[in-house]
């Protein structure tokens, strides 16, 4: 819970990880390249006071995770979204056993989502059934750029993926978190193409598809698909930290999301341990769309409350104190949420210099 100016915010961090990228767990050079890429994201977008040493970044462990997320980070509930990356790391990148044990040891605080790879065929399907039972899965994290032998990526509308989604339906796994790209297959097409989300969301209307990083670097394609599919959500992992170094860009992302998918389908995430939640939450509560961005309406306190926790709580049936709940917005299920405000520039007295 975070309280500021008399307002209380119920916080759900919808994308966290407990990873092990230490050299002894790296299978090859790609394991180093991958964590170095994350570390550069971390160094590039964090406030100076929040930058970790490289050694700290390689592995955190459960104790530090609990401290960063819950003790220091205001978070009421957090959801593990583990990436497997078995071609890069010996025991995988996300540490399933450790994360699951932590979830068991802290009832009510953590949700463990697992992953699957449709290229594992029948055997993988059996494993998914076993995992659903063992972990009590409500959600899965899918990384379509996962390398797998000769294949370096898959699509959500591959025939085998459909078999897995049918299984999710049977098993009550309703929240499908998708991290796009850079997917190498097919190489001819845009590696971050999100068109497969459109197909699968139309064919599985009873599943929720949460697109992580709100489709970045293809925000525009994501918004266009998500506005047409009432079961597509936007996860703010990686988008959040722009609030510090590039607040105007962050305002534009939020403005676009509010216009295309509305306040009930946007989910806060720190993407821990790439970033820590505390500073992101503090800055988001203080945040406002700059006046120079005349095309967007200001964010309201209720909208911030929904983004920071209430929207994710609904997807995962997380109990929210009655006084903190909010009703859904009276908005269209598809299409732009504010069609009358296609451009607010005139009303808000913008100046040319800001464009």
């Amino acid at each position, binding site marked *: 819970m975070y*309280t*500021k*100016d*008399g307002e209380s915010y119920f916080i759900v961090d919808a994308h966290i990880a407990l990873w092990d990228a230490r050299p002894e767990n790296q299978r090859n050079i*790609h394991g180093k*390249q*991958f964590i*170095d*890429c994350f570390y*550069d*994201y971390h*160094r*590039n*977008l964090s406030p100076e006071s929040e930058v970790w040493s490289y050694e700290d970044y390689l592995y955190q462990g459960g104790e530090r995770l609990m401290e960063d997320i819950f003790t220091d980070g205001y978070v009421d509930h957090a959801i593990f979204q583990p990436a497997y990356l078995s071609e890069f790391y010996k025991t995988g990148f996300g540490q399933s056993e450790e994360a699951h044990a932590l979830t068991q040891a802290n009832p009510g605080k953590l949700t463990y989502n697992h992953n699957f790879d449709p290229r594992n065929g029948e055997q993988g399907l059996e494993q998914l059934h076993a995992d659903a039972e063992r972990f009590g899965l409500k959600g899965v994290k899918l990384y379509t750029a996962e390398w797998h032998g*000769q294949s370096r990526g898959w699509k959500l509308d591959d025939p085998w993926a459909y078999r897995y989604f049918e299984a999710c339906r049977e098993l009550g796994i309703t929240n499908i978190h998708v991290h796009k*790209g*850079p997917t*190498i297959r*097919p*190489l*001819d*097409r*845009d*590696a971050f193409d999100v068109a497969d989300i459109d197909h699968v969301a139309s064919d599985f209307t009873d599943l929720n598809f949460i697109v992580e990083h709100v489709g*970045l*670097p*293809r*925000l*525009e394609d994501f*918004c*266009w698909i998500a506005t047409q599919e009432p079961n597509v959500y936007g996860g703010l992992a990686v988008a959040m930290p722009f609030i510090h*170094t*590039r*607040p*105007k*860009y962050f305002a*534009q*992302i939020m403005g*676009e999301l509010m*216009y*295309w998918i509305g306040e009930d389908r946007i989910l806060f995430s720190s993407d821990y341990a790439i970033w820590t939640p505390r500073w992101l939450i503090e800055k988001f509560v*203080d945040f*406002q769309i*700059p*006046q*120079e961005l*005349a*095309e967007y309406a200001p964010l309201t306190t209720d909208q911030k409350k929904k983004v920071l926790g209430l929207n994710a709580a609904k997807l995962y049936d997380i109990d929210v104190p009655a006084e903190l709940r909010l009703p859904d917005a009276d908005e269209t299920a598809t299409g*732009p949420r504010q*069609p009358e405000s*296609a*451009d607010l*520039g*005139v009303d808000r007295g*913008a*100046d*040319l*210099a*800001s*464009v």
Partner: protein
Amino acid sequence: MTATLTPPDLLAQAAYDALAVVLDPELDEPITDLGFVRSLVVDGTEVVAHLRLPTSFCSPSFAYLMASDAKDVLVALPWAERVVVELDDHHDSDQINAGLAADAGYKGTFLHEAEHDLEELRATFRRKAHTAAMERCLTRLLRAQPDRPVEDLGSVRLRDLPADEPATQALLRRRAALGLPEHDGAPVLVDHEGTVPPPEQVPMALRRARSTRISIDGNAHFCRGLLRTRYPGSESGQTHRADGAEAADAAYDPTFVPLSSLTRPAGRSTARVPEEIQP
């Protein structure tokens, strides 16, 4: 850049200038503006260029396009007899560099992962670049003419845009790349085939175009920033990008005065109150 670039080494300068036609298709900018040319050395008639990217996991298709385009323009220099282009520190560096050295082409480089070619990928991003340039011009026009309704934007012609503005020039270049008409009576708000949306769809077309512009500007600055983080000092190889610039850019670009410092600061609708102090 290496010392070989400075005059009197005119050949090295010519080779570097030639690389300015190589674009990052996704960011719609020359690799020489982005700082992606790590080094360029000319020794007699031999040219050796090393490229670098913001992360090891940048899309290999874009990486290959930039590296192979770079090799093509260097090979085209009349005096160059031997050209080596290498991509450094990428997860596919070995594969791409071997393909470039053997002139194996796209399919010969990526084998089973390549289906046909990368022309459709290039076309997709040429269209996005046009969409973004178009939105910049139209939003400027809206801000300059506050009485003009958004729905009316379909009637704007090229002649209605200020001819001497860089944004207009940029739009004309993007239109030329798509083969769209450049005469001054041509409509501005068009898709890649030159079709104007019906009036009731104009506001949504503008908003879609805006999301494209935001995306490209955001990516361009994030990629530049990641390159600076990954390769300290690489800012010296980057030119200032005005589109999408923010206050933080002043930290590494002393010539840059953020526009927001000339206007009002953020935080309009609610007064800032000090952090609540619990008794």
